[in-house]
């Protein structure tokens, strides 16, 4: 049992192209939750504030990605 659990952490996952990009979402969520937890005095306000920040980060990164893709497409 313990060996099976440890094996999960020993070798990396094989990732295809699409899930690789989806892994950005939980990392951005962690950043949003920790940032808002340290900034807000009332912890009841954290879920909403973190969700708004998370959406903002993800949309910002998508916008930057689309912009860079457009620039490279024009230059190519």
């Amino acid at each position, binding site marked *: 049992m313990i060996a099976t659990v440890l094996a999960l*952490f*020993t070798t*990396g996952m094989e990732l295809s192209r699409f899930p690789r990009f989806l892994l950005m979402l939980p990392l951005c969520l*962690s950043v949003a939750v*920790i940032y808002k937890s340290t900034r807000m005095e009332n912890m009841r306000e954290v879920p909403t504030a973190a969700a708004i920040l998370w959406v903002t980060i993800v949309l910002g990164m998508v916008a930057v990605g689309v912009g860079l893709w457009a620039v490279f497409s024009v230059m190519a």
Partner: protein
Amino acid sequence: MVPVPSESAESAAHPVLADPASLARVSAAGLLSWLVPGLGHLYIGDRTRGIVCMVTIVVTFWGGVAIGGVRATVDPHERTLWFFAQLCSGSNVGAAYLLRGDAPRASKEISSAQIAAWAGPWVSADIGVHYTGVAGLLNILVILDALGRAERMSIVTRRSSRDRPKGVT
């Protein structure tokens, strides 16, 4: 002639430094936050914030280790700067380093291809390194927040005990 600040002026500027008990409390909050993310907040009584920080950072760190594999993710020789970022998450990186074990070294018997196979796929390793590194960097935020809150609490406690009328307990 430069005026020398009096003891009371110095303690007003740095009230925590003037009180050994407050200084110990603030230092303990910072150290505990580094050792286990969120423990500093639990120590100063901020339970909800401590649990949220602990769960988020621990899940992010070990999620990264699960994605990239501990052999390629926690690597002080190949990814030195990221390792310093990971070190900020305290005991998590210690446990991961113990789990990793010693990496095989290139020799006549062991090729670099075999070492790469031991470490695992590089794409997931890169993502895992980002997860664990960001978890460590986020813990710096948590440590600074715990230090600030512990300091503010010490100042408030000190003021309320000073302002209390004599004879009132």
